[in-house]
């Protein structure tokens, strides 16, 4: 198969797609250089999976063009398929077959010889910690194991570009960290990764560049640092026992974001010890009792909020309860 080593991993212009009247992608442009991790970030229904389906030849776009490693999606789909590997959010393993058999099936479909197929299967079982379970049917695996097998199957063909569609959705925190480790290892080996996620922390951890997708449009793109720079500094959140304390505190600290239901104030603050002490001293002088204090450094959550105006941003949607975002609450002090 022909490879064009100089071509970027992914380029796309004006990709559009609708289902009936419902516009899922309203024209997006992408440029992903080789050997990088690109993360498409968005809430459920933002169009992430549709984008992956289009780029992996499963769906045809209504408009726009795209090239993967220099091969046009529309005219050279087989060349595109030979260059990519896809691991979706719903595992694509054969549940009745064992890990061994699943990997060998992939090797056969990639037309590798017997010896080479066995060698790769062996290496991947090792790499993905599936050696012990290799002779058990995949139906008996845990969610994390199944996801690892899924990714291992994707790697049998040595793809140049790997699409990971929400690779950690539904995994426990431990399996999620394992998956991150695996992704970092892949990047080190030189492949390009196109990752979709609804977890800001995940994009922050893994991606070189992040594009924020909201209602079928890219609303921002940049490195995690660039995106964080686009929003104002951090703040502290103060919670009070009752409305009286809240009132007094609001007068003392000046213009703030106030939530009467939660009895909280958001005060701009850089989170340094000096400025925290100054703030608490002022409240102390006014005899205000602070029930709880937490310091927020700006993170991608704030970026998302600022960009989409959607308070139900990524980490708050879906199974947020499974995914406490420790980066969000750097310090949590309960006074009294």
């Amino acid at each position, binding site marked *: *198969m022909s490879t064009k080593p100089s071509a970027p991993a992914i380029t796309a212009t004006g990709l559009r797609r609708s*289902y009936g009247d419902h516009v899922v992608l309203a024209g997006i442009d992408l440029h992903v250089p080789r050997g990088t991790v690109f993360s498409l970030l968005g809430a459920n229904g933002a169009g992430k999976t549709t984008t992956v*389906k289009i780029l*992996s*030849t*499963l*769906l*045809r776009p209504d408009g726009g063009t795209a090239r993967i490693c220099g091969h046009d999606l529309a005219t050279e789909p*087989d*060349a595109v*398929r*030979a260059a*990519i*590997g*896809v691991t*979706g959010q*719903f*595992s*694509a*393993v*054969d*549940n*009745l*077959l064992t890990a061994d*058999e699943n990997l060998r*099936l992939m090797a*056969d*479909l*990639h*037309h590798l010889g017997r010896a080479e197929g066995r060698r790769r299967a062996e290496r991947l079982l090792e790499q993905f910690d599936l050696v012990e379970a290799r002779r058990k*049917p995949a139906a008996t695996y845990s969610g994390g194991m199944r996801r690892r097998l899924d990714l291992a*199957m*994707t790697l049998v*063909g040595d793809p140049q570009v790997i699409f990971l569609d929400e690779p950690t959705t539904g995994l426990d925190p431990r399996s999620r960290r394992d998956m991150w480790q695996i992704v970092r290892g892949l990047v080190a080996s030189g492949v390009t990764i196109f990752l979709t996620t609804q977890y800001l922390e995940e994009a922050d951890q893994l991606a070189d560049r992040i594009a924020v997708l909201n209602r079928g449009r890219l609303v921002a793109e940049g490195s995690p640092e660039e995106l964080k720079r686009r929003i104002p500094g951090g703040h502290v959140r103060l919670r009070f026992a009752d409305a009286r304390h809240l009132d007094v505190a609001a007068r003392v600290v000046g213009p703030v974001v106030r939530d009467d239901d939660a009895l909280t104030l958001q005060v701009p603050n850089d989170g340094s010890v000096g400025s925290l002490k100054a703030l608490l001293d002022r409240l102390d002088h006014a005899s205000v009792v602070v029930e709880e204090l937490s310091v927020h450094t700006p993170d991608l959550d704030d970026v998302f909020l600022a960009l989409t105006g959607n308070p139900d941003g990524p980490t708050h949607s879906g199974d947020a309860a499974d995914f406490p975002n420790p980066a969000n609450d750097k310090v949590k002090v309960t006074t009294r």
Partner: protein
Amino acid sequence: MSTPSYALRDSATMLRRNLRRMLRYPSMTLMLVGMPIVFLLLFVYVFGGALGAGIGGVGGGASGRAQYVNYVTPAILLMTVSAAVQGTAVSVAMDMTEGIIARFRTMAIARVSVLTGHVIGTLIQTVFSLVVVTGVALLIGFRPSAGPAGWLAALGVLAALTFALTWLCVALGQTSKSVETASNAPMPLVLLPFLGSGFVPTDSMPTGLRWFAEYQPFTPIIESVRALLSGAPLGNNLALALGWCAVIALGGYLWSKKLFNRESA
């Protein structure tokens, strides 16, 4: 990438996968072989005495039963095929719901191999089922007068039917939203032998039903198998049978291919 040699190689890979799955999930195969055997025993031992007397004009009881085994076995063999292809619809639907098809679609493989793997797998499974069911029929008194050529020809007709119905079921499996629907969709195929000359001659039926029974595709197929096994004259049944098989196979193949190439939503 889609050269004929790869199509062959990928089909062989998919066939190995399907055979392995059948071995891993034997309860399905056993159920599919068991059902026609239950029907065979039921019809021969419960209804056989009376029905045999009815169709043969000889006395009831044992002699009627002996005659009825010979009459009903071809229909049971057909039912064996219908049952086996039901398994195909189920396994195709399982593939579709499990997401592995999406993986196959994103790989540079000969696309049709995903389907041909199922079709050839079913052919093998059906031949196995036919051998078992025929064995049981022989044990309980099935005494065909055909020579080896007749047997081979009968097997050929049944294989043609299997091939045709399998393509139909590959399509049915793909249209089904769930595995449960997929297992119900081919049900009419199991019933068709009843509404034909499978269990009783069609001239004993009321006019409307008789008309349907005489012209539906299963009747010439049953009559062909029956004639080939008993050495009776074939008439135009064989031509009709093979014609129907060709039409169903082509329709099923085109439908399957269209469904497989449609976009996954």
